[in-house]
């Protein structure tokens, strides 16, 4: 499903000519199979988000290869990369990243609108997804009227509604209290086992990483296999 090989990335900061180079990823190799939950653990600043951003196509790596579904994605144009994301990825962000001017329903509907589906088709899909994540009650609420956990459910519904094969989550519970965190993690596990969805979860939290089938640790720009514990 996902095949990352010898991925390297270095940031340059400071003025041109006297910039300081910060190697963040030093030859990452990772394979994720379909239906797997993979967690990437690491301290803050270890380069987890950078890895995910490259995988998502938000930025291009310095060198190395990223293949998703057999397609090399590291060198796509901006437009092709957007089209690829729309078809293959769902995103779950730490800050939920909902549109404040749209209701929960409309937020979930957004990717389908971008895809060009008619409002009739959208209604069916969105309602089904809202049911799956347990949001039917608050469909007409705006994000500001929802709790953190509800907002993250909206965000998950939005990520799933286009039925993408891969879900990318950057600190999905980073803004939630521990009780709500458990709720969301259970939802992720349920979606994985019932729908066979592939998850790549990035986190600094061991607890979160425990839902994964496999764990990796990012340290000093290198990825190491972490000890696998049994899921909760």
């Amino acid at each position: 499903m996902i095949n990352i090989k010898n991925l390297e990335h270095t940031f340059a900061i400071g003025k041109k000519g006297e910039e300081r180079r910060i190697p963040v990823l030093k030859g990452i190799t990772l394979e994720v199979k379909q239906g797997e939950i993979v967690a990437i653990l690491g301290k803050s600043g270890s380069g987890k988000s950078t890895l995910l951003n490259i995988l998502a196509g938000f930025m291009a790596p310095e060198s190395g290869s990223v293949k998703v579904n057999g397609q090399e994605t590291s060198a796509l144009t901006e437009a092709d990369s957007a089209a690829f994301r729309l078809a293959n990825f769902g995103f779950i962000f730490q800050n939920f990243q909902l549109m404040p001017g749209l209701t929960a329903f409309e937020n979930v509907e957004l990717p389908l609108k971008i895809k060009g589906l008619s409002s009739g088709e959208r209604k069916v899909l969105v309602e089904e997804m809202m049911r799956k994540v347990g949001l039917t009650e608050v469909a007409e609420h705006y994000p500001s009227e929802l709790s953190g956990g509800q907002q993250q459910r909206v965000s998950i519904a939005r990520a799933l509604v286009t039925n993408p094969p891969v879900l990318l989550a950057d600190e999905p519970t980073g803004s939630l209290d521990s009780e709500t965190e458990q709720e969301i993690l259970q939802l992720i596990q349920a979606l994985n086992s019932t729908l066979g969805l592939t998850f790549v979860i990035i986190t600094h939290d061991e607890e979160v990483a425990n839902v994964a089938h496999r764990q990796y640790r990012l340290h000093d720009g290198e990825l190491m296999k972490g000890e696998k514990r049994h899921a909760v």
Partner: protein
Amino acid sequence: MQFKDQVDFIRQHMKRNKLRVTTTILAAMMGCAFLIVLASVGFGLHKTITDDVLDNRKVTEIEVPSKVESEEKITPAEVQTMRNIPHVEAVVERSGVAAEAMAKIGARSGYVNPILSDLKEEQKAGLALSEGAMPKKAEEVVVGYHFAKALLTDEEREASEEQQSENGFAGSLIGQTFELELTPYEGEAEPASWSFTVAGVLEEPAKDWMSDGSVYLDDSWAAAFNEKLGTGEESKSISVYADGLPSVGAISEALKDDGYYVYSVTEELGSMNMFFTALKAGLIFVGTIAVLIASIGIFNTMTMAVTERTREIGVMKAIGAQPKLVQKLFLMESAAIGIIGTGIAVVLSYAISMLANWLVPIIIKSSLGEQDSEGFDMVISLIPWQLVVIASIISIGVAMVSGWRPARKATQIDVIQALRQEL
């Protein structure tokens, strides 16, 4: 994204910033309305003057006052040559009589304006009658529409000096015989009278303030008048008539090539059209400056919109929206501001134009007084559909151009940076 959803999307955004969007639309509207109203004055004046030219004369008439190179009179043979120019319907030679002319029927009398002409040729030239027929005999004449009104009794004449009165000869003039008394302007000759019968009455002149008290006589009378009164031979004015307005230009050219001075509607309108086209272009240009000023507002509004929505744009792009779509949504928003502003401006401009056309003549008339303003008939402002099209293209075009850079900026937003923004 379906077009309907794109429109919805824009509407939602515009609603969220109602005040800012409304004021920007207001500015765009004022710019466009200024452009339309300003240019409409050019169109109005052009129409006023064109109408004036077309109303006061026959549009197919080409006057030929003289030759260019010599003082010689135009000879009958040369007139005949003019008749052979393609599309010439008729060539009429008219002359006046150098005498005061008074028509009399019984106790009624009035001053009239005798015109000597070839009535057969006049008929071909399209002299239109409201009543009766063209003369068949030399003693028969055609009279102007207001001929009957000019014939007053002495009492009526006194009364008409005190107040306006609708008097004059009542009933049909056709078949009426009248005396035409001619008193020469110069010389010792005694006044003399001739008897004529009215065969036809001309149509009413185009403008209601014009009065036609003419009498068209066969030109064979010139010799008889000259013999009795010693009026001499009046110089003839020559008019060439085309078979339609489109051939006026070609005939005018042919006459000029033959060495004649030519005066026709196309000549007159030609130089006028050039002047007014330049005037209108100038006014549109000045108006466009107002539109450009308004466009600064659109630029600001759109730039602010892009800045404010950076995070949302980032989310859209992250989810998989094409950069093209993002650009299109912002361009559509600035176009919407332009379109709404222009729509309101067009309606407003028509209202202002109507108001101006109603109000300005009233003001001018009241300052000129009753007498001078008679026949005052002018279009202050005219908005033809072409002006609406031009102004709309300029306003909406400028709105889109000013939205271009902000829209580009929106597409260039970096997803990672945008998502990092605080909520």
